[in-house]
């Protein structure tokens, strides 16, 4: 009988549920899932931020002494580092011998390169404070301004201090604002104290790392004159062995 083979509607198999996929059908349930997913996303983003996951990755491992580092403001090739005594003050200073040439066509103040160079001591017990620049061909004379197109063998001399205890909190992003506000306050008592004895910290140090930042020539924010500023971009990191001279 031919009729026996007619297809019947309710025998046809269901392809999919009316909503499709694995999502529940109710609007409320769907809204709850969307809400839950958003909360999860936000919480994980905050957690990653708090753990420092959005900080830029270290560009490259620290390079060897003698590596040439080019920035827009200057090209620097650090060769060696020593702790030595400043003949004028008698205090221990960090002296880095490096080839230095300006990439500008106008002179700029020598200490302006300090903001592009971070000095790190692995022990964390020392801090480089102020930079002065001398040239090996006339080490008695301070260099006030770096002149253009004059490659020099330079002595970068940093005075040393103990890192401020307050600095530590600033690595924690949740405490950063409060910490930076505290740092902006001048500690007048500390200025009047005798310089701390850095002998043990200096004896302990075996190497230093110079982090050299890229820089840009632009107007300042409050003082709108144009000058060199350091950027966050790291041009290079160079690790130098360091010893006490003499």
């Amino acid at each position: 009988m031919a009729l026996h083979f007619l297809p019947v509607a309710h025998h046809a198999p269901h392809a999919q549920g009316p909503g499709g996929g694995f999502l529940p059908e109710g609007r409320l349930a769907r809204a709850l899932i969307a809400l839950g997913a958003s909360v999860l996303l936000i919480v994980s983003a905050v957690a990653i931020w708090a753990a420092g996951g959005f900080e830029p990755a270290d560009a490259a491992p620290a390079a060897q002494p003698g590596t040439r580092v080019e920035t827009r403001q200057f090209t620097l090739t650090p060769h060696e580092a020593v702790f030595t005594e400043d003949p004028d003050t008698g205090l221990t200073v960090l002296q880095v011998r490096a080839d230095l040439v300006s990439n500008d066509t106008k002179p700029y103040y020598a200490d302006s390169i300090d903001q592009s160079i971070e000095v790190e001591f692995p022990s964390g017990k020392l801090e480089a404070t102020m930079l002065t620049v001398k040239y090996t061909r006339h080490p008695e004379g301070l260099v006030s301004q770096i002149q253009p197109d004059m490659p020099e063998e330079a002595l970068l001399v940093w005075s040393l201090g103990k890192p401020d205890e307050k600095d530590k909190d600033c690595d924690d992003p949740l405490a950063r604002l409060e910490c930076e506000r505290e740092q902006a306050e001048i500690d007048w008592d500390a200025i009047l104290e005798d310089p701390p004895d850095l002998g043990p910290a200096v004896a302990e140090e075996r190497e230093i790392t110079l982090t050299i930042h890229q820089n840009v020539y632009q107007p300042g924010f409050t003082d709108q004159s144009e000058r060199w500023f350091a950027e966050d971009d790291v041009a290079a990191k160079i690790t130098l062995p360091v010893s006490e001279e003499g």
Partner: protein
Amino acid sequence: MASPLPRRALTVATCLVLLALIFVAQSLLPGETDDTEPIPFAGEVGTEVDAEQFTVTASEPRVAAAVQDDGGFGSGTPLKPHGVWVVVPARLTAQEAPLGTVEAQLVMGDGYTYSVTSWLFNGLGTGSGPTLSPGIAVGGAFVFEVPKDRLVDPVLQVSARESLDARLSARADIDLGLDKDEIAELTASPEESISIPAAAQIP
């Protein structure tokens, strides 16, 4: 009255033109630095340049293979240059007010600029030396260290002012009048050594 479509097209075109003009006008606005450039007064070697706040007379530039402080607080040891020393003797007189800051730069034809050496105590423009008092001339020398091949069409820019701030200050631009042949001759056979006496008031 025109039909709506051409009118609308005209409005759109006018807006676009005005927007373009705004961008052009914005890009023509001078920045703070350009706005407050020192005010230059041009002159030549050997003649008195009147920069309103001060007058300055520069003498013929000299080129040397060594310079040293002559007396004063300097070390007195001869200093070898990275290139050559360019010494420009000059006499400055304040016109109205005492001028405590004297600065100088040597600006080359290609824009390369050199400031006075900080290694000589006696040089003019190093921060030492007497304050310029109105009407009393001060004589001395500006000393620059310049790579030999960078010495091209040098212009001496002298600024004397009351404050450290150079914005809108008076500046004398003195063409040193050295042509290519003269520079080649001076750098090929520089003077052996020049002693720089301390800047002093000229009675």
